[in-house]
């Protein structure tokens, strides 16, 4: 029996030391989530990213694998975000002509979405008596995480809190975007994409790409422009206030 003793180390927690389990489980959870989403006809509430997060969290609960161990293992998947965001240049390039002819529409969308994104969040938090640090951390919530962290640091917010809020905002926007588009009777894929990118950055863009390439391209553009402009404008505004 002693020759088999090494097998006793084969517990879930032991396997979790190798990134195979975390990456494999993430891919499996997302493919199951995609299937459910597709079966429901891409129902907004059954957002594949949100479903996969729920599946993984139940999985971690059941196997007693700590979050930190999962996050270390799933880093390979997280890393792929970088190249994926760079590749958003491709749908943008393909829709170049449509984007160039929609310059004013894009400007109008940003002129509305950028200030409303900041003021609605800070305004609601202020009304409900949030601390000033929370409000500062909330201000860049609609901006892609990498930019939001920099803004948060500059204006005096908590960086970790900002990342948490940015991701919560992304998921909220990805879920609510198609619902709002239907309620507001918006059918133009340019408007739907632009709106989701401005309000909910990359996670909204992932959902917009499910709608169509036009929606995805405009969402990627909305995310990029909103991020760059907010990075320039928000610290200036806060210095004035």
């Amino acid at each position, binding site marked *: 029996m002693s020759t088999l003793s090494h097998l006793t180390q084969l517990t879930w927690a032991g396997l979790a030391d190798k990134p195979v389990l975390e990456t494999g489980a993430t891919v499996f959870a997302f493919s199951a989530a995609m299937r459910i989403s597709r079966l429901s006809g891409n129902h907004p509430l059954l957002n*594949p*990213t*949100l479903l*996969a997060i729920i599946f*993984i*969290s139940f999985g971690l609960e059941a196997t007693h694998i700590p*979050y930190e161990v*999962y996050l270390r293992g799933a*880093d390979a998947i*997280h890393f*792929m975000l*970088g*190249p*994926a*965001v*760079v*590749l*958003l*240049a*491709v749908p*943008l390039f*393909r829709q170049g002509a449509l984007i160039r*002819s929609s310059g*004013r529409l894009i400007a*109008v*969308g940003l002129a509305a979405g950028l200030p*409303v994104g900041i003021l*609605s969040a*800070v*305004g*609601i*938090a202020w009304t409900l008596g*949030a*601390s000033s640090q*929370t409000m500062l951390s*909330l201000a860049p*919530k609609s901006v892609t995480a*990498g930019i939001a962290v920099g803004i948060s640091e500059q204006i005096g917010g908590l960086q*970790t809190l900002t990342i948490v809020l940015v*991701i*919560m*905002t992304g998921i*909220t*926007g990805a879920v*609510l975007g198609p619902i*709002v588009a239907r309620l*507001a*009777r*918006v059918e*133009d894929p340019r*408007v739907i994409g632009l709106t989701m990118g*401005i309000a*909910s950055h990359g996670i909204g863009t*992932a959902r917009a*790409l*499910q709608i*169509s*390439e036009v929606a*995805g391209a405009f969402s990627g553009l909305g995310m*990029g422009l909103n991020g760059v402009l907010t990075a320039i404008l928000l610290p200036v505004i806060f210095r004035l206030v």
Partner: protein
Amino acid sequence: MLEQITRVMFWLCVGEIVAKSGLLPLPAPVTGLILLYAELAVRGKLPDDLGVLADRLLQFLGMLFVPAGVGVLAFLDMLKAEAAPILAAVIGGTAITLFVTAIVANRFGAMRSKSKEQKPEQLEGLARDVNS
């Protein structure tokens, strides 16, 4: 295909250098996106394999946010003290932002398309969209 993966990594790497040097307050992937777009605009054409690579990877863009989303669960304790204002600000604020942006941009888009007929390239883009 490997050439295209190298191209993406190259621009991401340049983005990383720009970010580290503090030249621009932009994260590496955003700079990389802008540079890759600029390269494509200068060349005027999309390499086939790059298109395939983008289509394949972007199909799973939502999956790449799963670890970050799970990471949020590890930090939920941070929100405890001010859970109500934070949840209201995130959910309410995002809903308001979506509504206002969608309605304003849609009004403007409808106004423009009424005032002049749609451009042929717009229809082309929408047709490709339907076909995909």
